[in-house]
């Protein structure tokens, strides 16, 4: 088990290096730092001197991969590739192009993101499993057919509409909750109610349909027939046997996203004005702050890779048949 874990973590390193190189290509090779400076300084009245000044003050005045002016190892290390891109492996992300420290920003903005993402995940999981079990309980009836059709209908609605309709209905017309905004601390619940509800509702279509498939597959297995033949009720089989075994594939899907919860949701946070990491990303995209975008891509990948490793571990924990070699 331990050896397997070490190997998995070692395997993650080439992936992260690959991602790092992709972002390096996108932000330094496709566009030179000069382009970046011009985008930041605005289009008109930019002199070459201003560009050089901007590059020096933000540390972009280095060659891409090879610095001939330096001696020894510094020929390689004193370059943009090492200083700006590979340095992300130390998790010290430096300053954004606007001059703020990215690490401080992230550590502050992580919490509002989690405040929305964690309840949405837990509630969404609960609601979807309950609905899926209901559909499976009434299988081969008209109810199932219409429920599956409703799922397709819900899936076909853009996430944007759920947010806009929710804001309009509950915040503007009924005035039950504030339209947007956020306060730190426990008072935040008033602001979180609507985004969490919207996140849960918009996940019902795809979630219920997917879990239904899992449970339907489980219910066609031999042990279900045995349990029914022993005289267990339909409900008992469903909750005691099918639910337990169906949780295995569901867990795979859930554990992998847990670390990514830190990243927050782009759409929800920006519509509801929550100062989380999703909002941070949108602001960075709109102001073309490449330092932040690079950092977020790297962090997002790290969280995803951690999620994959966690999935493997939970698999061995919950399913004794699986052994990691």
């Amino acid at each position, binding site marked *: 088990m331990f050896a397997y874990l070490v190997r998995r973590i070692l395997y993650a390193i080439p992936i992260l290096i690959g991602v790092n190189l992709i972002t390096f290509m996108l932000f330094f090779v496709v566009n030179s730092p000069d382009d970046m400076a011009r985008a930041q300084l605005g289009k008109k009245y930019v002199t070459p001197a201003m560009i050089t000044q901007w590059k020096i003050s933000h540390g972009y005045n280095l060659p891409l991969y090879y610095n001939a002016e330096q001696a020894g190892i510094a020929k390689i290390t004193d370059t943009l590739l090492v200083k700006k891109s590979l340095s992300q492996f130390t998790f010290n992300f430096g300053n954004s192009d606007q001059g703020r420290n990215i690490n401080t920003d992230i550590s502050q903005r992580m919490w509002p993101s989690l405040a929305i993402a964690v309840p949405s995940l837990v509630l969404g999981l609960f609601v979807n499993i309950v609905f899926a079990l209901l559909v499976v309980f009434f299988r081969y009836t008209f109810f199932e057919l219409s429920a599956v059709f409703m799922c397709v209908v819900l899936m*076909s609605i853009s*996430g944007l509409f759920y947010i806009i309709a929710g804001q309009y209905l509950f915040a503007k017309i009924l005035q039950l909750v504030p339209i947007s905004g956020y306060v730190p601390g426990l008072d935040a619940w008033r602001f979180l109610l609507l985004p969490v509800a919207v996140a849960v509702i918009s996940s019902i279509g795809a979630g219920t349909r997917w879990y239904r498939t899992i449970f339907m597959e489980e219910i066609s297995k031999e042990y279900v027939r045995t349990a029914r033949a022993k005289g267990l009720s339909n409900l008992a089989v469903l909750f005691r046997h099918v639910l337990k075994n169906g949780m295995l594939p569901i867990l795979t899907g859930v554990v992998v996203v847990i670390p990514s919860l830190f990243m927050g949701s782009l759409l929800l946070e920006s519509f509801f004005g929550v100062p989380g990491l999703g909002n941070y990303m949108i602001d960075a995209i709109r102001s073309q702050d490449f330092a932040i975008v690079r950092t977020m891509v790297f962090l997002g990948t790290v969280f995803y890779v951690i999620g994959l490793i966690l999935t493997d571990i939970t698999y061995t924990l919950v399913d004794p048949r699986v052994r990691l070699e």
Partner: protein
Amino acid sequence: MLPFKPVIFISDWLIFIFLAIAAIVFFHSLKKAHWRQAWKKIVYQPVAIFSGIILVIYFAIAICDSIHFLPKLPQSNGTQANYAAASESLLDVIFKPLSSENETTYSKPWATHSLTLTWYHDAKGHFHGYYPPLEFKGVKNLPLKLLIVGVLSLFIILIFYLGLSWFCKKRWHLSWRTTQQLFWQGKTLFPYRTFFFTMAAWIVIISFIAGFCFHYHIFGTDKVGNDVFYESIKSIRTGLLIGSLTMLFMLPFAIGLGIIAGYFGGKTDDVIQYIYTTISSIPGILLIAASVLSIQVFINNHPGFFSSISQQADLRLIALCLILGLTGWVGLCRILRAETLKLREMDYVAAAKTLGSSWSRIMVSHIIPNVMHIIIVTVVLDFSGLVLAEAVLTYVGVGVDPSTISWGNMIDAARMELAREPVVWWPLTAAFCFMFTFVLALNLFGDALRNALDPRSEI
């Protein structure tokens, strides 16, 4: 001398290439008995007929909107013919008055007067407020016209019904009475009843649109007075373009790499697996955002590459599809690799190998035909995801150009419109209806395809 000069945008070429490939695959499959059987299984499902008709209408509109030309300007005798600078599409010609007759600002659907109060001084210096009548649209006798259009559409439906019944009667060699019974009970193999009701619904919708869209703004007008119905119709091409171009860029990677990785295994497999694991490790929207941002700065810094604004917007759209394609091939590639791993152990592949077939021949004639059903189902279901993604990406600021008419841009504008008083709800509603219908049809059609082609995997 033609009264117009055709122009073809790069995106037009690509959309036609995509449709041509789809058509070739379809007609080629008709030559094989088992595929004919499969297509029969598809069209015997009422859901497939219902959603298929919607898709045909959407694709027809998008194709009309992809045929561009420069209209000829009126000329005096003997001079050289001049063509307009801005290109028009066939759709623009069909809906001519809608594209050119703009009001000044918002107006409600079916309105005769503007939404905003205008103030003026009268002779005595008093202020008066009034709602100015619309410049172009809004006619009298609405109830009478509604009645006429309603009766007319019912008449068309009746003719269509009689024609369909006659066709069924001839085909089945049955009496009139039995034909009717079979038809209304819906016990026919081909779902004629669903076909009839779907067509009837569309006949009503289309005749109402045709009857009124030139006299009213049936979905109102937007902030700068553009007809919302016309914009929604134009958006169909954008949505369809994003889906089909992305597929065009994605499929070669997904099919090629997936099959090669599965077939050869070993080092080749390792390299391809490394590439797709790396790409799939980056959260999708972040990778797309980063790529689009990078391309956007590139385009902004090299304005000399593009001769016109619309060409720049066109290329930006293609770049977006290229990025969506390059980031989106992983899912299908993974499935195809797994499937090829199974297929290469099959006896017929071993037989082909012993008989001396080259690997390229085995792939083309033994492996690809056997994974075709997976590819077709994935294309249709991913298509719906891409149409939805366009709206989200446009909102985030990495989607289509703000000057391109798209559902994403309409929804983006709706945020402000819902906050104003009185609420402007119609652009959002229109975008919602058009987009929802399209995505729903794609999802339903994809499910029907999967039921027929790949019954084992069911979601």
